[in-house]
């Protein structure tokens, strides 16, 4: 009887099936090593987090949040106001770059705020990079002109833009950028996203939360020759569910968890 129990127990263990990972799904680190993740070690969008994320062999790239300062230079920062995560106060769009270059995160490592320039882009070459463009200034309640953002990107003088994908939820910015760049539309609503794919054929894909899209809906977007990036993926269970939808990109907040499942 004891052996039968052991056999049943062993069979139960063996019956646990491994998640089948679609090999075409690229793993992308959200804000480099994850947003608000206890295991991320470094502050989101920091140079240290970028370097660490890119060191992982199977990490295909990263997603970074981009904001423009008052002189048209680009900086990597997620939140609307600097006071939430750094030693400074105010919105990036209203601050001088000289001031921003002295800003650092309120973390143990005191990582510096990163300016998006050719040094950073050199580090990012050969990797897929999503740039989430922030077009709204919450301090002045105004929308930043699309042409200014486009000029700021052009001023980076990038040799090749093939690996760079720009994310926006603003129609005007989508139209302005899609002439020259690869642009994904970001939404929480699948129907709206699908409509955008029809209304703006030049849009290359959709960025959507894991809970807002099903596997069939992912396939429906892909059938239109568009790509799908799923984000807000954190737990092992959520990551497996997202993998099973077979998106083109998985933007994860727990990079080690996603790489672990893919391995």
């Amino acid at each position: 009887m004891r052996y039968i129990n052991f056999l049943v127990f062993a069979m139960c263990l063996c019956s646990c099936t491994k998640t089948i990972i679609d090999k075409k799904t690229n793993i992308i680190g959200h804000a480099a090593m994850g947003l608000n993740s206890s295991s991320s070690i470094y502050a989101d969008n920091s140079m240290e987090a970028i370097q660490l994320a890119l060191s992982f062999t199977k990490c295909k790239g990263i997603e970074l949040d981009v904001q423009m300062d008052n002189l048209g230079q680009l900086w990597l920062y997620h939140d609307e106001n600097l006071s939430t995560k750094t030693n400074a106060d105010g919105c990036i769009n209203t601050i001088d770059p000289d001031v921003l270059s002295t800003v650092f995160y309120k973390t143990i490592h005191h990582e510096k705020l990163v300016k998006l320039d050719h040094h950073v882009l050199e580090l990012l070459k050969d990797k897929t990079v999503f740039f989430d463009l922030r077009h709204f200034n919450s301090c002045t309640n105004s929308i930043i002109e699309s042409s200014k953002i486009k000029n700021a990107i052009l001023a980076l003088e990038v040799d090749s833009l093939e690996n760079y994908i720009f994310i926006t939820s603003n129609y005007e910015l989508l139209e302005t950028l899609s002439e020259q760049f690869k642009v994904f539309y970001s939404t929480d609503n699948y129907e709206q996203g699908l409509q955008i794919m029809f209304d703006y054929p030049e849009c290359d894909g959709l960025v959507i939360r894991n809970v807002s899209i099903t596997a069939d809906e992912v396939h429906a977007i892909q059938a239109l020759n568009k790509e799908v990036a799923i984000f807000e993926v954190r737990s092992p269970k959520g990551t497996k569910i997202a993998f099973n939808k077979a998106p083109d990109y998985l933007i994860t907040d727990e990079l080690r968890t996603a790489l672990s499942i893919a391995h």
Partner: protein
Amino acid sequence: MIRFIFFFFLFLNSLTSFSQDVVHTAILPNSMFIASASLQRMDIFSGFTYQKNFKRIDVGTSFNLGLRSTFGTQQVYSQFGSYLTFPLIQQGAKKRDFSFGPMLGVHASFLNIGNKLRHYDILLGYSMYCGKTKGNLKFFHQAGLGPFAEYFRTSTNTIVQSYSWNYHLTIGLAYAIY
């Protein structure tokens, strides 16, 4: 913060002051087998610990598995650890024994996610257990904070190192041997 410190010492005082109780010298176990769960920065670990008492010091060795990684992602995340506890308070009252003291521990964890990750931490905190006098089952608790290091080798054979802080918050059930 000051409020927290005040309540912490108030809690300690309540454990050590038994003015109306029958106070006796605690009868401490010679060794303990502990099944525990530990909340840490990288995962929730669960496993077994063996703790041996040497007069003024308790020495423990542990083996744990990271539950999220091992069972959630099917990659074994193992952790080996060792610690020293210096029991400062060892008291008994109302047929119950209690032990409390500072703890110094080291841990090494291993996870393969394509890159073979190695995590090391040094922990400074406290350790305590309590239960019936001469009883076999004890409640066990440890908490600590300390530096944390992650190492792994990239595809280009360079070693990546990153340093931060880690915390351990452990609760468990101990089987005491006298």
